């Protein structure tokens, strides 16, 4: 039978257990702090690379993966055989050049000397880059056009 005469003393003033709840909160916040700072630390160090430079692609030769490469168009390197859609051009990061092969629509700003071009595609062993998509990075200097300015 249940021991009905036994009454546990109820000394449940919240001082002691409340402090363990506080301890757990502090532990959780500490873990959060450490995790976030580690995350920030690595983010500063490397983190995700949205695109490579031309030099990086040529030296690393990323095989069998879709990469983005960033560079400027080499002046007068753009060629397209008339009647065909396939275009060839070169991108440069200032020192290295890379031959790109692309079959598709060229955006308006592609030939602007200030534009940086981002090409998405695959690098092939023989030193060419087969482009699937072209993005033009907008210039970071905004200046008025002399001829049209009022």
């Amino acid at each position, binding site marked *: 039978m*249940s021991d009905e005469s*036994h*009454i546990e*003393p*109820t*000394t449940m003033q*919240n001082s002691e*257990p*409340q402090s*363990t709840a506080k301890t757990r909160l502090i532990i959780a916040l500490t873990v959060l702090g450490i995790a976030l700072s580690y995350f920030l630390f690595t983010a500063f160090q490397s983190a995700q690379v949205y695109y490579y430079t031309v030099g990086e692609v040529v030296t690393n030769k990323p095989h069998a993966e879709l990469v983005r490469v960033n560079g400027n168009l080499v002046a007068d390197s753009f060629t397209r055989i008339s009647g065909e859609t396939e275009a060839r051009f070169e991108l440069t990061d200032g020192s290295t050049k890379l031959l790109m092969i692309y079959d598709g629509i060229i955006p308006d700003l592609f030939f602007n000397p200030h534009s940086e071009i981002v090409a998405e595609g695959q690098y092939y062993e023989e030193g060419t880059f087969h482009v699937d998509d072209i993005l033009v990075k907008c210039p970071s200097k905004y200046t008025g056009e002399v001829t049209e300015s009022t």
Partner: protein
Amino acid sequence: MTNQFKYAAIECDNVSKHYISERALDHLDINIKTGERLLVIGPNGSGKSTLINVIGGLIRPTKGIIRIHGVDIHKSSPEHRKTIGILTHRPFLYEDFTGRENLTFFGKLFNVPNVSYRIEEIADLFTIGHLLDRRVSLLSHGNRKRLGMARTIIHDPNVILLDEPDSGLDAHSLDELGQTLGQTLQSKTIVLTSHNVDWALPLVTDVLQLSTRQEALKTSIREYHSLHELRKS
């Protein structure tokens, strides 16, 4: 002395609970002393179940404070819940577990020493020993209720809150439950709701009458009887 005797067992301080379209409790002030057994009666919608849930700390009141042994139930540590046993409309049992598994689980969470012995003891009390190894989903409503009662007092709480423990029980089990409540749990503080006033009245020391307008009247059992006779005559 411990808090238990220094403070009222249960203290509702200006407690209101409003749902969106209705108000279940309104400015309720009650004090329940240790060892008092209170029957809460009233028509449907007078807030009986809400009162049980609010005192048990399962529902936060819209306004007011509930103290159990002097400690605000919503600011106390989880440990404080060991003093409370609550049975609501739902028995709080896992359907795919057997009775024994359910009791073992809750016994462990309530940190009951020697759980398996305690289960046998409590199964005797409610004569559910033969049901312990059946899945809850296969039990009848009345047997679930008995198992729920066993779960409610497995940790030997000092404050026991029962929402219609008698619903769905046959005459025999009613008798048994009455005996358990009246004798075994004599020294406990009990709040109990019931539609079956004739069954419940002999078990309690006080009566709280709630109306659909959320008026509350707390009387001792003797006062209740004299009021009742007055109304009859």
